[in-house]
């Protein structure tokens, strides 16, 4: 059965809530009362529940299967997190309640901050960023504030070509010019090229570590020393912290700022694209530039600093209120469940699982680089050469076998990249089954005459391949009654 839009199901006069009639009062709307209908459809509760249940059934999800999206860390989302996030003392408190009435909520933020600082070996953390990219912005603003506090002006930010798109976009959003650094043949930053770009107008280098090829930047300490030697700062993209949590502290590598995607390493749900949460840990050099607000613990009670007095060097406010509290509760629940010992095991198992996939598929598919990987296994499309099958076709064929595809065509430094991240919450059985399917598809592709079969995939999904080109050329971004009647006419 097809599921129509709510606008195609609704009827005037129906509602899915039973609100009492409003008491009659003299209107104070000052003549601004809405006239005319908004156009919202009316549905009963059973219709709404069924509609969204059916929509959900058209989605793939970790709960239903392995979700090997590299760089996204699709790990198990524990339900205890959800339960804790709904405790009224966390979920039903207002951000502007008197501080005396939100001591538990502030304690939670402070406790999570302690965990984040301890795990990264960094002295400070800014909690308010709403997502990873927002955290990048926060970190880069702190860097720029620190530079300006020294009376300097610097213009360039060095960003490897393999970086997430957010890195250059963030540097630009902070008013910087982006200067790319190429990768070397080993998939790491080309250190000679990096050195060549250094200078006293370089504000910072932004490096993802482990990087987007799933590799640890082996010269990371040297890079940190080099950037510091020219007076710049080292921004680390912490998206891949899952690979090293509990085994390496970024603070020990010379990092000045690093955001942490709570929805990756610390299991808050991805939720079809959000909400995220991106606290940023900061080095001593950047600590005093944290944005407003922050929590301090003094004399047995928690305070929320929302305005700094004279001499304050914070760079301002990134967002209304204190941050993504709901995500904080989930992340702390996860951290406490794992503990220091468990989090170390997380990194070990995540890396073990990825290397196992890399080893088991190295003959069927083509690893992009030699040697072990960290938490994700990167392949290029050379194993598909001459088959007529593209990375995209290969990915779509996986769907019919019951899997969500891996990340494709990223990082850009590898041709036709296929980036596979199993995470630590997959069992060996599940991974073996996945390997068997990928190996089988690779063999099929290599038969040479299977391109049509691949190009017809997926076949068994609610929709087959969708026309993205025409979607972008003549965008239809909302339902309108005209759309509906036009369709009826067609």
């Amino acid at each position: 059965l097809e599921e129509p839009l709510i606008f195609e199901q609704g009827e005037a006069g129906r509602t899915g809530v039973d609100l009492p009639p409003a008491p009659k009062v003299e209107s104070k709307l000052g003549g601004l009362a809405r006239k005319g209908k908004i156009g919202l459809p009316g549905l009963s509760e059973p219709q709404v529940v069924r509609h969204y249940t059916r929509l959900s059934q058209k989605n793939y999800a970790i709960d239903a299967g392995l979700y090997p999206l590299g760089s996204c860390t699709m790990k198990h989302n524990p339900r205890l997190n959800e339960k804790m996030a709904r405790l009224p003392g966390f979920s039903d408190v207002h951000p502007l309640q008197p501080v005396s009435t939100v001591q538990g909520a502030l304690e939670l933020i402070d406790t999570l901050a302690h965990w984040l600082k301890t795990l990264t070996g960094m002295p400070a953390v800014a909690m308010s960023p709403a997502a990873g990219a927002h955290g990048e912005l926060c970190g880069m603003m702190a860097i720029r504030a620190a530079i300006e506090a020294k009376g300097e002006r610097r213009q360039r930010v060095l960003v490897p070509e393999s970086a997430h798109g957010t890195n250059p976009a963030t540097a630009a959003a902070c008013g910087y010019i982006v200067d790319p650094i190429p990768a070397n043949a080993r998939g790491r930053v080309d250190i000679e090229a990096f050195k060549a770009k250094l200078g006293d107008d370089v504000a910072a280098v932004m490096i993802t570590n482990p990087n987007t090829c799933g590799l640890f930047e082996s010269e990371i300490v040297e890079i940190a020393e080099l950037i510091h030697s020219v007076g710049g700062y080292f921004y680390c993209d912490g998206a891949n912290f899952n690979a090293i949590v509990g085994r390496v502290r970024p603070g020990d590598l010379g990092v000045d700022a690093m955001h942490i995607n709570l929805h990756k390493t610390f299991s808050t749900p991805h939720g079809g694209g959000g909400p995220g949460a991106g606290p940023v840990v900061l080095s001593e050099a950047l600590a005093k530039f944290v944005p407003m607000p922050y929590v301090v613990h003094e004399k047995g009670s928690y305070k929320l600093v929302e305005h700094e007095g004279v001499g304050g060097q914070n760079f301002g406010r990134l967002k209304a209120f204190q941050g993504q509290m709901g995500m904080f509760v989930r992340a702390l629940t996860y951290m406490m469940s794992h503990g220091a010992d468990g989090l170390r095991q997380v990194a070990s198992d995540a890396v073990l699982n990825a290397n196992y996939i890399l080893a088991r598929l190295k003959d069927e598919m083509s690893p992009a680089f030699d040697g072990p990987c960290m938490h994700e296994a990167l392949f290029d499309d050379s194993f598909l050469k001459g088959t007529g099958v593209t990375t995209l076709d290969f990915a779509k064929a996986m769907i019919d076998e019951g899997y969500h595809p891996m990340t494709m065509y990223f990082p850009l430094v590898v041709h036709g990249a296929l980036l596979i991240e199993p995470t630590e919450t997959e069992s060996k059985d599940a991974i073996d089954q996945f390997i068997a399917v990928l190996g089988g598809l690779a063999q099929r592709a290599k038969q040479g005459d299977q391109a049509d079969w691949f190009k017809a995939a997926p076949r068994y999904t609610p929709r087959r391949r969708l026309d993205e080109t025409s979607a972008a050329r003549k965008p239809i971004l909302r339902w309108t009654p005209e759309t509906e009647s036009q369709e009826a006419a067609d």
Partner: protein
Amino acid sequence: MRYLPLTEADRRAMLAAIGVPSVDSLFRDVPESAWLKKPVEGLPDHMGELAVDRALSAMAARSVPAGSVPFFIGGGAYKHHVPASVDHLIQRGEFMTSYTPYQPEVTQGTLQYLFEFQTQVALITGMDVANASMYDGSTAVAEAVVMANRVTRREKAVVSGGLHPMYREVIDTHARFLGFEVVAGRIDPASADDLIDRIDDKTSCVVVQNPDFFGNLRDFSKLAEACQAQGALLIVAVTEIVSLGAVKSPGEMGADIVVAEGQSIGNALNFGGPYVGLFATKDKYVRQMPGRLAGQTVDADGRRGWVLTLSTREQHIRREKATSNICTNSGLCALAFTIHMSLLGEAGFARLADLNHAAAVTLAGRLAGVKGVAVLTDSFFNEFTVKLPKPAAEVVEALAKKNILAGIPVSRLIPGRDDLANLLVIAATEVNTEADMDALAKGLAEVLS
């Protein structure tokens, strides 16, 4: 380790298949100086569910939940009743544990609800199109200013004194780093700052809020005309989206961009987040818009379906030239919004707004009768400002001790202004009972006597 499926036997077998003696050897690229030989110090070891539940429940019990007391705080986050089915549906694993819908064939569920969400937001704000949500209202307003600068190729934003102070601070932060100018309007709870005079041919946009931070409702139609005359965009922020069930929409007033905080619909207070930013504009600006967009298309069999679209605006394609660095939306919060709004429908949304307005009118009338209290706001939706005979912060603390959460002292958000120190912003919604209102009036009378 309840979340880790590998057994010791599995690990041994996998290491053998890889051909290395231990997991340590997979970390060979890490400088040995940085290796931690054992678990990080200073943190406890793993805990079972019962222990975690106990510890966090004890912590949560050290806050006072809004639902447990008479509660009148608004200021950009509102306590409303959310139907039980909303929270049930957003927790379905197929929604909650899914990723950004990059593979549309297996994420039509997410894409279709985003398309529905976009349509709802466009309808409510009275605009042509809306995106699939932003982090929250405050970041959305900053993105709107940056977008207006881009559209107009100008670098001066005129910002109303009635804009939520935190929203203004977020704009200021972006202005500092991107180097654009902010012209700030006068902050005065009772009268509109005259923004029209401040618009010139360098102005990229004018930012106003409706109802404003103090609760005032205004018609910005004239301001819209003035903006248009100067080639500036009018940005209207709405922090209480429920107001649009009763009040003329920004679109009808001529707004170019509408940004809003959507928390009130479907989402809990959550001590400030996660919330859901709404962002709507006119068709002609859609390619300058930040954020994710779901669009309608057809599949290989010609059936209607949905995809993420116009991604050439976005950072993962466009990198430093992107319209924004944003790479997520507020997925689950947007889903909660769209489910709650679907349940309300036209009739429910209007009635919810009426209930809110009636509660605020009733409360304002009640408080006007308390000695020493002056209601300053004439036209309002569900929030208004009163002037007290002493500092509002003290009064709020005194009432909190009586287990009444009375509102927001303006001084908390705008410190250092003596003329604002005695002002209290008070909100009332459909959750406030007669008994709540009596408690506030009585408490206030006691504290002021």
